[in-house]
């Protein structure tokens, strides 16, 4: 069974939401990424979303964009990121999902990307610049390999497109909570819970919420209704601050992951 499905099933039985931290592979270096991946489960993570650094990440705000730029400046290549996953598998049993631009996936060739990703130990991918229509021919090859291609839904997605996403959804649906790009927000939309409920009523696939979730309080709030909570920019920002102050970025990430994990698991 795919690790993503197994984890969500286990959490569903425990009536708990999944906590999904995001960070960039190779920022500030591969060793930091590796240590976070191996310690993430103990710190309270249920899934890891691993960013593949990309030169032109249009869906991302300044925090993640800067993080990608640092990783690329450090010389990280796709092969290095895949190798990181392979090494992390010695000690990390969590499901790992790639966040990777379609520019990269298309250049490598979709089936080549799938085979290499699976071989390295990835369980699925979120491809933020690949809408469902353009993915039509990719779902088949992914399904054949038991690899999860995650679909996105936003507050502005029309009902007919929600239906399309639901039809193709595997692993989990990534619900983008806010308009615009990734990044921290002081407040999440007031009707978020209602929106999540509506989407959950339309699908049996778990719904995870990301974009804009930045504090343990917000994470706890989202965990009341969603099946999963994704936090990215707030973690990446803490890592960058730590690195700048000469502190250990992995420690900074893990201690924040611990706080968020507690909040998600015990939202009341």
């Amino acid at each position, binding site marked *: 069974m795919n690790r993503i499905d197994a984890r969500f099933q286990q959490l569903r039985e425990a009536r708990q939401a999944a906590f999904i931290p995001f960070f960039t592979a190779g920022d500030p270096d591969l060793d930091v990424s590796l240590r976070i991946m191996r310690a993430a489960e103990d710190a309270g993570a249920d899934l890891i979303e691993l960013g593949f650094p990309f030169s*032109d990440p249009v869906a991302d705000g*300044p925090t993640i964009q800067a993080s990608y730029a640092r990783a690329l400046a450090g010389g990280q290549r*796709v092969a290095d990121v895949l190798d990181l996953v392979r090494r992390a598998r010695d000690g990390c049993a969590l499901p790992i999902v790639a966040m990777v631009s379609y520019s*990269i996936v298309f250049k490598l060739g979709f089936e080549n990307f799938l085979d290499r990703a699976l071989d390295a130990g990835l369980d699925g991918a979120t491809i933020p*610049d690949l*809408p469902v229509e353009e993915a039509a021919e990719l779902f088949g090859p992914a399904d054949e390999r038991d690899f999860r291609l995650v679909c*996105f839904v936003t507050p502005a997605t*029309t009902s007919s497109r929600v239906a399309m996403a639901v039809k193709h959804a595997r692993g989990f649906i990534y619900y983008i909570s806010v*308009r615009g*790009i990734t990044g921290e927000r002081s407040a999440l939309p007031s009707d978020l819970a209602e929106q999540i409920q509506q989407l959950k009523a339309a699908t049996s696939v778990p719904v995870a919420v990301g974009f804009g979730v930045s504090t343990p309080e917000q994470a706890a709030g989202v965990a009341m209704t969603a099946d999963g909570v994704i936090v990215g920019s707030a973690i990446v920002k803490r890592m960058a601050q730590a690195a700048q102050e000469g502190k250990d970025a992995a420690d900074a990430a893990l201690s924040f992951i611990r706080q968020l994990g507690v909040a998600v698991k015990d939202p009341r």
Partner: protein
Amino acid sequence: MNAELPDGAGYFGGFGGRFVPETLMPALHQLEHAYEEARQDESFQKELDYYLREYAGRPSPLYLAERFSERLGGGKVYVKREDLNHTGAHKINNTLGQTLLALRMGKKRVIAETGAGQHGLATATAAAMFGLSCDVYMGDEDIRRQKPNVLKMRLLGTRIMPVHTGAKTLKDATNEALRDWMASFEDTYYVLGSVVGPHPYPMMVRDFQSIIGREARRQILEKENRLPDYLVACVGGGSNSIGLFHPFLGDESVRMLAVEAGGRGSGLGEHAASLCWGAPGVLHGSKSYILQDEDGQTSPVHSLAPGLDYPGVGPELSFLKSTGRLQCDAVTDQEALDAFRFFAEIEGIIPALECAHAIAYLMREENRTAEDEISIICMSGRGDKDLFEVGEILGLDSSEPQEDEG
């Protein structure tokens, strides 16, 4: 021949499409429907024609460059004078069309990306004339290189949004404009400046720019009573070229030449010749020829002409290259610079560095046409914006008398 392209999903053969975050899909659908309605609405077309004529100064002349033709010693070379449009380039054709569409959609604010500043200026101009607020994203490096256009835009009431990321040029300005639009599309219209980006932009910008080719076709038939043998245009994103080429696509005897920025050489990072030296890839929302490394990371680009300094090219041009309908070549910085000076001296027209590439192509020995052949160059813009850069390189600022090279 290709009048029916793109298909409903925005594809020109295997190129085009819509590779954007889910967040942008509603904005693109809204735009697609609004444009489809406008396209079929005669009053929209009439209004656009009115502004193109009364405000932009169309039709632009098709000028026979007699001395230039003589000096080349081949056939006649005509120049489509887009440099004579208001704001000094072909960009106004597109921004008047898109700004009218923005008004029709009830938007209060327009945004744009710009490299050389010509598209930013044309957007700022249309926004000022129609009373819309306007923000233009521009890379730090381009703000430095294109100061006159920055000052003009500010004078027109536009806010310049400096972009500090990446190479601080057009590609990065495009990223920022897309990010802005993702959060703002309910009241904001994104005026994209070239035939790139997600569907429907490549189709819509082509339609607005096709006025160049429609006029040129009519004008050459009036003057010569026959079609031209060659159409030559510079290609960055490709809007002036496809604007000239598109109305001739059905005329099989007409050959089309896309001239790209060969910069300092053919090594990755030294040029901006996506059609010549790139490969199919995905950037800024569509599949087309892209300059990227084997991991799909966008590669740095270089051209002396800031308007050609872009790592991608429109999907329709990519398609036309793949079918062999379009021929592509690259011209170096130095050749463009020589053409810039030569054309100014011999025709009294200072071309933009971008279209100096098209001129340079025709000046090559091996590209001389036969005496009975006719070429049309798209003079996409005037060179005022380049005077400081070129002046410095050529030493025109010196108070010493210039050596006579005539």
